């Protein structure tokens, strides 16, 4: 089949999928091979030299018609009420290759629907037993939840016992299903695919920057599906990326709000709100202001806010739940240097303080693929089920020290051709991360992880804004260490701020798109745009610059985030030197050239230990605490303000909790 598509001939198929193993059970891809007595299934037939393959002979046509007739025997005629209608492989192929009349007069079989949890809806009578979902669950997602029971006419796809799918990637079976047997539960009966406007964008629910297509109708996001990008997410996305979109329709900020005399937030015009912000800002000194960016902040607004803060004389910049000891001096120090696709080539992987299954599920699937290709995976950190067997070396820094002293793992890393070390947020977010990072650096040096043509030092981040913030240098300046307690705090979409950073008497300006902790604490609320409503730049944890595209209009009177900061600077009479998106991007490219190179990874410079030495000199000898590395994400489904407002995600949390009970 691959040979045929290389030659430009498209062969119909249901069960064959290039990222899954070959099943050969739908028989739709039958072709005629010269000197072969019967038509052969091209998906399972290796192409050989001198082979003559015919794909448009009467025999092939008849074979396809026959297969199609068999498939349609037990397929219900409910296309008009089927959510797959219009984008259904079976519908399309029966139009192309099916017979023009039916001879079927018997009863169709019926199959009981399965309950796969709050995300995947099943209509099992529509199933044609291609087993793509079963192969996806076992091969890619790594859960043994789906399977085939029964034989012949009685065979059914289902969970063996009544149980929801326990995977962070379960939504992908919806895309894989060539018919309408597995469809999206939240999307059910809400839209038809031909009424949707598709916008290719980037997901911000984790730091991986999964490529997505936002399907919208009018002002509503109707669904989110993956876009194929072999370098990032292949063609999978996590359930959070796919199903959190209903959070975009709830608890939104649509008008500027200013705290009135009664101590309540009251709606105001932009002019009133900006003037109120100016009054508050002009009352405090530069060093008494602090600026905190949230998990979903884009690069444009980050640079605008940094420029504004510097003009106001403040260097107190911070990203919430920050990795306090990472610095922006050397880019290779905070990126996944092997790149996401490069992990495929690694042969020994050591995870330190990272649980990729919750921090970046699609990346975890990628590590799993590497594992299946024969790589050895070990981890230091809290025990976690990564969907594949992992050598667990310990939970805390003492295990790291043991590796350094010379354990079999160190030897294994040294002997490996392409060893990779992945440092997760479990290390970065610790108060003593400087000391732990020194240990990690020592390990990187000792195990010789960075070699000619291979850089195995990877940092895995958990929030979409982190890498862009580091690239821009959105971090505390040297002077900020001696700054007094802030009297004015500017929150750029920050809802998970550390309460210590926002004193009770501080004046708070919140800019963001959802009403949550930040807006509830704020004195002034400036409504911004969510990631589906703006053209914004994000950088994922391998350093790939990617841009979201506006799919739907902004809510009410909300504005694009960087333009709010630009307007504020104008009111403060310290105007920023850019007034269009292109000019902001030019400023970004000025700051860091890779911002101009969208969808590419500019491999950063590796300073061969010089940086590690500098890091050590600066951080000094710090004590390492005993406690175990724990992942920053305790609840995969609710990590940021969008997923917290999403009802779909709340249902997922409930389902998981009930599964844990059993």
């Amino acid at each position: 089949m691959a040979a045929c598509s290389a030659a430009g001939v498209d062969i119909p198929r249901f069960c064959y999928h290039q990222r899954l193993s070959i099943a050969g059970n739908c028989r739709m891809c039958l072709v005629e091979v010269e000197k072969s007595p019967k038509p052969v299934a091209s998906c399972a037939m290796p192409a050989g030299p001198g082979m003559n393959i015919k794909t448009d002979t009467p025999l092939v046509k008849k074979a396809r018609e026959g297969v199609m007739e068999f498939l349609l025997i037990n397929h219900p005629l409910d296309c008009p009420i089927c959510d797959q209608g219009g984008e259904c492989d079976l519908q399309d192929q029966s139009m192309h290759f099916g017979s023009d009349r039916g001879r079927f007069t018997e009863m169709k079989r019926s199959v009981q629907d399965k309950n796969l949890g709050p995300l995947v809806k099943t209509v099992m009578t529509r199933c044609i037993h291609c087993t793509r979902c079963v192969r996806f669950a076992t091969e890619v997602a790594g859960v043994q939840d789906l399977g085939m029971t029964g034989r012949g006419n009685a065979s059914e796809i289902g969970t063996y016992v009544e149980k929801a799918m326990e995977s962070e990637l379960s939504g992908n079976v919806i895309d894989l299903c060539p018919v309408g047997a597995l469809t999206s539960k939240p999307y059910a009966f809400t839209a038809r695919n031909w009424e949707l406007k598709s916008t290719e964008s980037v997901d911000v629910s984790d730091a991986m920057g999964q490529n997505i297509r936002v399907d919208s109708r009018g002002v509503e996001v109707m669904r989110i599906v993956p876009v194929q990008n072999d370098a990032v997410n292949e063609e999978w996305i996590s359930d959070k990326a796919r199903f959190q979109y209903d959070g975009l329709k709830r608890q939104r900020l649509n008008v500027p709000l200013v705290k009135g005399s009664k101590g309540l937030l009251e709606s105001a015009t932009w002019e009133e709100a900006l003037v109120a912000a100016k009054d508050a800002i002009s009352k405090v000194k530069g060093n008494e202001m602090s600026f905190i960016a949230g998990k979903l902040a884009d690069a444009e607004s980050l640079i605008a806010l940094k420029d504004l803060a510097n003009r106001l004389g403040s260097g107190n910049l911070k990203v919430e739940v920050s990795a306090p000891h990472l610095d922006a001096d050397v880019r290779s120090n905070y990126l996944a240097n092997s790149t996401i696709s490069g992990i495929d080539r690694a042969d020994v992987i050591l995870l330190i303080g990272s649980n990729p299954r919750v921090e970046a599920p699609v990346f975890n699937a990628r590590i799993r693929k590497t594992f299946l290709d024969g790589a050895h995976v070990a981890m230091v950190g809290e025990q976690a089920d990564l969907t594949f067997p992992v050598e667990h070396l310990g939970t805390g820094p003492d295990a790291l020290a043991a590796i350094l002293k010379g354990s079999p793992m160190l030897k294994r890393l040294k002997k490996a051709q392409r060893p990779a070390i992945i440092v997760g947020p479990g290390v970065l977010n610790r108060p003593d991360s400087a000391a732990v990072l020194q240990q990690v650096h020592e390990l990187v040096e000792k195990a010789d992880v960075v070699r000619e043509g291979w850089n195995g030092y990877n940092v895995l981040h958990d929030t979409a804004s982190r890498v862009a913030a580091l690239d821009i240098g959105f971090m505390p300046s040297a002077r900020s260490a001696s700054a007094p307690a802030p009297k004015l705090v500017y929150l750029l979409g920050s809802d998970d701020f550390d309460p210590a950073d926002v004193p009770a008497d501080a004046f708070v300006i919140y800019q963001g798109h959802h009403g949550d902790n930040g807006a509830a604490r704020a004195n002034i609320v400036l409504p911004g745009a969510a990631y589906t409503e703006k053209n914004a730049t994000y950088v994922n944890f391998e350093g790939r610059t990617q841009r979201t595209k506006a799919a739907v209009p902004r809510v009410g009177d909300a504005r694009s985030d960087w333009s709010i900061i630009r307007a504020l600077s104008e009111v403060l009479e310290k105007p920023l030197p850019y007034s269009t998106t292109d000019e902001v991007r030019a400023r970004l490219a000025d700051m860091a050239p890779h911002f101009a190179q969208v969808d590419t990874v500019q491999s950063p410079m590796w300073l061969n230990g010089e940086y590690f030495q500098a890091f050590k000199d600066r951080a000094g000898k710090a004590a390492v605490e005993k406690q175990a590395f724990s992942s920053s994400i305790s609840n995969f489904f609710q990590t940021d303000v969008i997923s917290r407002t999403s009802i779909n995600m709340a249902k997922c949390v409930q389902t998981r909790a009930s599964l844990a009970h059993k």
Partner: protein
Amino acid sequence: MALVKFLKDTYKRDSVLDALKAGGWKAFLDGTLAQTTLVHGPNATLVGSDGFGNKYYERMTEQYGRHRWVVFGDLDWPSGQESSTVPPEWHGWLHCITDSSPATADVSYPIYHVPHHANKTGTPSSYAPKGAWQNPSKRSWKKVQVWDPASAGASA
């Protein structure tokens, strides 16, 4: 005498005069009521009653087809005497579909059974389609729900 007893029973009064005062006089305006209370009623057998207070009578000496009738619990005229208050199990007996009444035989209900209620047309609880302005729980056509600072302040 049976007529007197019937009037007294129907209106739950001790004397005929009181019964007439309590609403029996309406029989002179309402022919149906007169028929059931004055002509049919005397010497009839009370077979049973239902949850709405409807009483079911039978008198085999009547012409066939007129030998079973109901005296409604709510005898107000013209708002009462709602024939749709007769539940299905009594409806069958009343219309001679069956001879077994709930008074003489156990009624088994299917699993989807819901308690019977009278026709609600013309009342505030009558059916209104979704989106109709009469429907109290109208479907919200707003695409986006906006944050309300007052509610958030309470929860925070």
